[in-house]
């Protein structure tokens, strides 16, 4: 119970910081909207659903990357990670709280992105929405973990995409599959399995990521 109170306090702090600074969410929303507008004009008239589903997932992935790249910016700029690491709470609470906050920002960006996609390209079905939720969990769990690793390095802006994108390939496979087939259960199950597996790995190893 205490663990979840710590997670709540840390996630509340991240949401409050974003509410004050507005560094991340507006950038994510503008980026994803700009991608759809650009592709609306760049793609041939009436593109196929298969083509645009791929575009949707690329847009979601890069929008997430934008948020993940900023996830640990306050901790890096103000060195506050030292303060959090010294607190007597389980260090994985820092990862879980940061993942939850990033999930909230990504979901908020998608609330704008999915209707835009429907306006410019094709209708968004229930399976796609389920895939978005499951993919977001995996993206935020893995991306936050890698973001914490990258933030300690000088090449942090380069390192995060280099580490994250290969690990996100299974997410893209599962999400695109769930969005285009008639029976998406197998793909959604694959996404859920990915989420569970990587969430456990990240949760268990975050302690070593923040130790110098």
């Amino acid at each position, binding site marked *: 119970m205490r663990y979840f109170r710590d997670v709540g306090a840390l996630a509340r702090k991240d949401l409050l910081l974003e509410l004050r600074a507005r560094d991340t969410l507006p950038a994510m929303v503008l980026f994803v909207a700009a991608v759809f507008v650009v592709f609306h004009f760049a793609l041939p008239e009436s593109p196929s659903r298969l083509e645009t589903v791929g575009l949707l997932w690329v847009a979601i992935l890069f929008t997430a990357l934008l948020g993940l790249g900023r996830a640990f910016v306050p901790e890096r700029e103000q060195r506050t990670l*030292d303060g959090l690491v010294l607190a007597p709470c389980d260090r994985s609470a820092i990862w879980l709280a940061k993942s939850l906050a990033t999930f909230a920002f990504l979901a908020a960006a998608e609330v704008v992105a999915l209707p835009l996609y429907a306006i410019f390209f094709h209708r968004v079905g229930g399976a796609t929405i389920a895939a978005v939720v499951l993919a977001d969990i995996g993206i935020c769990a893995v991306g936050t973990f890698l973001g914490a690793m990258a933030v300690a390095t000088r090449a942090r802006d380069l390192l995060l995409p280099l580490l994250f994108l290969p690990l996100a390939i299974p997410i893209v496979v599962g999400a695109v599959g769930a969005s285009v087939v008639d029976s998406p259960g197998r793909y959604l199950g694959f996404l859920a399995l990915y989420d569970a597996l990587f969430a456990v790995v990240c949760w268990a190893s975050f302690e070593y990521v923040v*130790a110098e």
Partner: protein
Amino acid sequence: MLVARRLGKRYGEKRVLRGIDFDLASGGFLVVTGPNGSGKTTLLRICAGLAQPTEGTIERAVSRGAIGYLGHEPLVYRELTALENLELYGRLYRIAERRERIGMLLERFGLWEVRHERVASYSRGMTQRLALCRVLLHDPELLVLDEPYNALDEAGAELLDAQLAELRGERTFLLATHEPARLVPFASGRLALAA
């Protein structure tokens, strides 16, 4: 409380600390001095558990939650208010009667009137006072303070002196400074690092 034996630290090829030995008993007050680049900050980070030595050993008789660490940075969020920062740390350290403790510290360090203002609007001296509130919030057994007088004006420095005098003997201190003369009344030992 702290026992260091042949403590050393390297960052790649660069050696920043070598062969440090000291014993700091409970209630002791060890002042660490040395020129810039002598490894004071690295030593304090190792003692606080924020960095691992690459050579030698360090034994701590206190848990992580009983350490109060003040670094070169105040370790507070600039976009949060003083109250929100201390509330966050108070929750993470599970402080009983958190609000009373926070109010008492803010009052003592002269920040009560500005408790609802964002730290970004504070002067460096006010931010350092808030950092001291953060360090003292959970009433730590071991205080690891790196240049605590930095950015403090005379009134702030006197407040810190009073705090050190109050806690001396009851708590254990490891303190790095460029002004050892100021700490003569408190110090029980001195560790001079060479460049």
